[in-house]
């Protein structure tokens, strides 16, 4: 069972509020200890996730709900800390295993969002919520001080099992 996020933001699916979501995520990531470039990339990943929900999930209907939950991963003996971002919506459900980025060799407009999210974050997980909508869980771990920021080779994972929806009302 997932713990309740330490920070929650509810917004409507209007692109004009993407900037606010980016600022919030970037600021929290900075406080957690990510460097400036990583903060920008984490904010980018969230922006791409929200844009995909607005564009494909809600078909550009701009008054639908989206929830963003943010929690730090606290440093421990096993972990160096990081950030977990959970994005919930009430959009149409899709098979999580079909959420894949396209091949980049074919240069064409669009379709880059999923690829960017997967490149930036360490783990990307899609789930169906139990009643309606999708959940995306993004995880990024802070680099150890001696490590320089890098893009690691992560793959998205998917879960068919419906996730418990938070009580959002």
């Amino acid at each position, binding site marked *: 069972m997932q713990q309740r996020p330490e920070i929650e933001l509810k917004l409507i699916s209007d692109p004009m509020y993407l900037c606010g979501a980016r600022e919030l995520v970037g600021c929290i990531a900075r406080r957690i200890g990510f460097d400036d470039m990583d903060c920008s990339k984490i904010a980018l990943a969230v922006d791409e996730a929200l844009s995909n929900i607005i564009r494909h999930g809600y078909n550009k209907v701009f008054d639908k709900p989206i929830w963003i939950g943010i929690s730090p991963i606290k440093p421990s003996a096993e972990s160096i800390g990081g950030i977990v971002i959970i994005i919930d919506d009430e959009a149409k459900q899709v098979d999580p295993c079909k959420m894949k980025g396209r091949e980049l060799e074919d240069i064409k407009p669009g379709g*880059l969002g999923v690829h960017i999210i997967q490149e930036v974050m360490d783990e990307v997980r899609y789930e169906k919520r139990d009643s309606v909508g999708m959940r995306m869980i993004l995880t990024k771990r802070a680099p150890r001080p001696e490590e320089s920021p890098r893009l690691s080779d992560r793959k998205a994972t998917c879960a068919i099992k419906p996730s418990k929806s938070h009580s959002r009302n």
Partner: protein
Amino acid sequence: MAHQESAFISIDRPEQGIVVLAPTADIDMSRSPDLRTSIRQEMGSGIHKMIVDLEEVHYMDSSGLATLVEAMRNASKSDTKLVICNMNQKVSAIFEIARLDTFFSIVVSRDEAISL
């Protein structure tokens, strides 16, 4: 030098046949349609070079990238050179993530873009 402004895009014509589009804010899903419109309008105005100056763009998402990819394709069809300049590190990073950093003609400054 002719100069005009759209909603968030400054448009300059430093020389005959050259247009410079300079967005004055971050480019995301809410603003890329304006950029696309400006690019389309200018692309069909008889120019031979279009410069997109990103000096005041501190953030761009994939909708901005898609707009520029479409612009590049249209530029190729209309014998127009498309050059991007003044890109900061964070914006440059998204081009690298999308592996588009070698697809575009990218230079450091507007002057360099004009003289290219």
